[in-house]
């Protein structure tokens, strides 16, 4: 199924999508407590300071987004490599 999907995938590279980096920057900024009043601990959420829970949430988003980019926004030579393997050769051109 993965192979069939990749055959229909256009050439994709994360660097070519500026919105990707805007979203990633926003996630990182949201996960860094720059914008919160310093010294504040409460309220506690799940037994942790609220700002830590906030940061953990955006850190999860950072991982999820990065992982998604790897799998869905990166497709340069996968089809050619798979085709080369099917042809029994290991060479391919780009």
């Amino acid at each position, binding site marked *: 199924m993965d192979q069939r999907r990749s055959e229909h995938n256009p050439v994709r590279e994360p660097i070519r999508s500026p919105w990707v980096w805007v979203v990633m920057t926003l996630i990182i900024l949201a996960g860094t*407590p720059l914008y919160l009043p310093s010294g504040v601990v409460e309220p506690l959420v799940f037994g942790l*300071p609220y700002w830590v829970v906030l940061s953990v949430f955006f850190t999860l988003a950072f991982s999820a987004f*990065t992982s998604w980019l790897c799998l869905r926004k990166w497709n340069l030579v996968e089809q050619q490599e798979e085709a080369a393997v099917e042809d029994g050769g290991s060479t391919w051109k780009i």
Partner: protein
Amino acid sequence: MENLNFGGTSGIVVLLTYAGIMLIIGYFAGRGRPNVRSSVRGYFLAGRGLGFVALFFTLYATQYSGNSVIGYAPEAYRSGFVWWQSVMFMIAVIAVYLLFAPRLYVIAKRESFVTPTDWVRHRFRSTRVSILVAILMLWGLANYLLEQLVAMGQGISGLTGNTVPYQIGVIAFVLVMLAYSWMGGMRAVALTDVMQGIALLIGVAVLLFGSLYLIEGDIAGLTQHVVDNAPEKVGVPDGETSVNWLSMIVLIGFGAAVYPHAIQRVYAAKSERTLKRSLAIMAWMPFVTTAVVFVVGIVGIQLFPGLSESSSEQLVGMMANQVAGINVVFYLLMILLFGGVIAAIVSTADSALLSLSSVVSHDLYGRYINPRSSERRQVLVGKLVGIAVIAVLLLIAWNPPTTLYNIFVLKFELIVQIAPAFILGLYWDRLRAGPLFWGMLAGALFAGVWTVIGEEELYGVPAGLLGLGINVAIAVLGSLMTPRVQDDSEAAVPTDAAAG
């Protein structure tokens, strides 16, 4: 690391078992593969044949060193909840990979690159840029390796209750490491990383379980304890600390992604599919590694209040002692933890050493000293240089620095300066060798001098990041001011559009 109170025999058994397994893996990695000894790609890149399991674990075991456990827990202890940043900056490393790895993988395979310097030479055709990049990489790798050797000695003497003296422990494990690297090159390093990565994962899981057991799983009580006794470690950090948090994400994200052994793992991937699947999982690994170590450090605030900076460096050992004292099951689990830490150190050290050997043998010896040398000879030179470098670093390691984290930051100050050569160089046709060279040199000198004279950070921004700013500014402005037509000696090759 503090000595474990359960003595050394079981620790020695664990270490000997690890050593035996590593040697067996190394032997089988090289057996029946003459290319490992006669081809630089075979030896340094495993013939570009690393499949998903080997690639994922070698990325993992290499990125997370022993310092990620024994150095980061004390950092969380000292700085408190703000050390959650360690999870974010480890994810940032994978995010930065996405800026260059997709295209670099394609070009490296097409052009048969062996070292990161091969890309720089291919793109800029400039001897001075190539040599400066090689020097910065060697400096970073040597420092990284030194840190692993120091941690290795502390870990081994801790695990064996000083039954094995510091120096003997280091030499024994270095010999094992050299032996399996010699026999199987990158293939042996990657396959041993599978075993070492699993050992590290088990180790940190055990450490988390033991730590939570000691506080009876009461997270809310832990937070309340920190609020009552060390409020400065639990509140929203001040502006300068938050800026430092953000700076570390950028500095370590860019610095760790362009480490030579990190780039060589991009080269060594069997296929694009293998590489992106490995990195997709790597984006989650901070949650089962640095996040766990963060929790352990916070638990330490409750269990061992009031430690000085140097005493806190022993936190993992102290925690292990406490956990091992509960009952025989925990005792055995703590042996696994220390085995995991040693495995993490060795797996990082072997990768750094192999990369360092490749830069010396391929970029310096094979390129400038003896350009007519055969690949077999280059591989041999790389192996011998590796032994010589280890010998020199061991002499330095006998007097280890007190705080591991400080030398960790120092490495990134310089290595991060090569990032523009890769990231800007891949996509921006106008980047020129001259401005790039002066930018890297200025950035490295600024960061190095700032650090050596012990100047304070500028509102939380480390010197390495300031240096990178200067570096990029010189490279970009200088390139924009350079006429598009260049003389042949330093004319840049147009950036390679991967799909073009």
